[in-house]
């Protein structure tokens, strides 16, 4: 169908904040959808300037986005969404594909607030989508089929990893990767601090810390080896690495990280219930 051809696709964003901005940059980077086919709405011009600079069209009217798009991304804050859905509901038709980025709002809720035959999908991205190194998971609602899932995946793979999952994994993804990005920042900061303590200037230490994380992650992704094996490969007998790792184990780092993922996941579940 014509609408499935990405170049013919009209894409809309209701809400134009950071997350939406990350996704649209990825879309444009991939060259799949021309900027002129993208329309974003937001209450103020604050965010919209950046979109116009990319060549996208902008508006203050949510209904206009729905009228003029086939693929509609919902990217508002959670407490705003119900009001927005009520507003756009009359304009939503069977040809629309509605993809919600809104944290904590379940497919069940979305389907309840939209017409019953609406094709709904829910996606949880993470911050590095803005630099096309994101991790995203999405789930389908009752009326979304293989075509819609394939379209979403093909459009968003340019932003990073994009996988379909059962909806129950979405909160876990929040704990692992949504919030997980912050754990990495914390770790990077601590690494750099250690280096500063040992005498390295802070700015250099920070850049090296970041590069170390990037490089290690790249090796993990590209070699497909188990992290325990890669860790072992770095540890020469009696060498510096194993001494350091012993310190990390003494501090029960692993358990603490598991605690963090668990806490964030549980919080995501709790918030979704509100």
């Amino acid at each position, binding site marked *: 169908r014509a609408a499935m051809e990405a170049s013919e696709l009209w894409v809309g964003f209701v809400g134009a904040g950071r997350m939406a901005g990350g996704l649209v940059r990825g879309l444009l980077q991939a060259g799949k959808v021309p900027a002129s086919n993208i329309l974003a709405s937001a209450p103020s011009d604050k965010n919209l300037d950046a979109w116009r600079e990319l060549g996208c069209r902008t508006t203050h009217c949510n209904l206009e986005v729905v009228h003029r798009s086939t693929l509609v991304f919902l990217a508002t804050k959670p407490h705003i969404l119900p009001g927005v859905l009520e507003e756009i509901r009359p304009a939503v038709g069977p040809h629309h594909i509605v993809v919600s980025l809104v944290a904590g709002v379940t497919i069940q809720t979305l389907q309840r607030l939209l017409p019953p035959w609406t094709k709904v999908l829910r996606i949880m991205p993470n911050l590095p989508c803005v630099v096309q190194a994101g991790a995203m998971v999405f789930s389908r609602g009752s009326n979304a089929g293989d075509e819609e899932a394939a379209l979403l995946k093909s459009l968003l793979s340019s932003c990073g990893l994009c996988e379909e999952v059962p909806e129950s994994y979405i909160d876990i993804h929040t704990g692992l990767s949504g919030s997980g990005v912050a754990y990495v920042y914390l770790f990077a900061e601590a690494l750099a601090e250690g280096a500063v303590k040992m005498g390295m200037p802070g700015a250099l230490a920070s850049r090296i810390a970041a590069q170390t994380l990037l490089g290690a992650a790249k090796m993990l992704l590209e070699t497909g080896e*188990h992290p*325990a094996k890669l860790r072992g490969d770095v540890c020469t007998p009696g060498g510096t690495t194993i001494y350091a790792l*012993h310190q990390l*184990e*003494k501090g*029960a780092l692993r358990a603490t990280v*598991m*605690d963090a993922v668990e806490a964030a996941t549980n919080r995501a579940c709790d918030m979704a219930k509100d």
Partner: protein
Amino acid sequence: MSVGVIGAGQLAFALARGFTAAGVLAAHKITASSPDTDLPTVSGLRKMGVNFTVSNKDTVKSSDVLFLAVKPPIIPFILEEVGPDIEARHIVVSCAAGVTISSIEKKLSTFCPTPKVIRCMTNTPVIVREGATVYATGTHADVEDGKLLEQLMASVGFCTEVEEDLIDAVTGLSGSGPAYAFTALDALADGGVKMGLPRRLAVRLGAQALLGAAKMLLESEQHPGQLKDNVCSPGGATIHALHFLESGGFRSLLINAVEASCIRTRELQHLADQEEISPAAIKKTLLDKVKLESPSLSVASASKVSLFTNKSKKN
């Protein structure tokens, strides 16, 4: 080939049991000695058909391969005692933690110009032929001598040659290792009992679980981390349990244990090299018996100031 064992304690018993079960040595080809006939293992050795004697010198005379299976502080006294009886044909295999080849060669060289010395670190599961043994050959031990020992020890488990400077680490890992495993097994059984299992069944299942896991690891190309992952279904029982282990610093405790054992071994070696051994470290009766056999030992050397603390003397 005849094998002699100086010492008739846990290790002597384990070696004798292992060798005879493996069929590499008939019991009557093994001689074990100790001045202390009260050791519980002595009757076990006798029952096995091993020749038991109170004379270390007799053991040396009747053996080709001579295992020194006494506690490290006793080694210098033993070497003084049997040194005169060591001939060129003997292969002296010291199993004592922390005792270096050079210290043994130095002691024996006053009696024999080119003593064949091999240093070995094994462990008690040789008794069930699942031992873990490493060895390093001394200055005058040939390749064939090492191979002979390797054949003997391979019949009771895994055996490989290593550089001598790794032996203390081996002590920390597989020498002491069975004790870590027994502790873990005891605790696992407690867990089973807490959750309702009868003790015997809990012990049996815990032991089988560790045995099976170890076997899987030895037969697999995979990293233990991968094997662990294979057991952990998402959100399942095992991953919940592992989280507890991690919270308790399980991994670091094990690393600490291996490190502590290795460091203590080096400490013992250092003390032994200085020959600062207190009579308190050696049972008085035992020392007297040893001294009776070797008049060259002076009372003065046996009563040097102790550098040992009150920590356990077991290696």
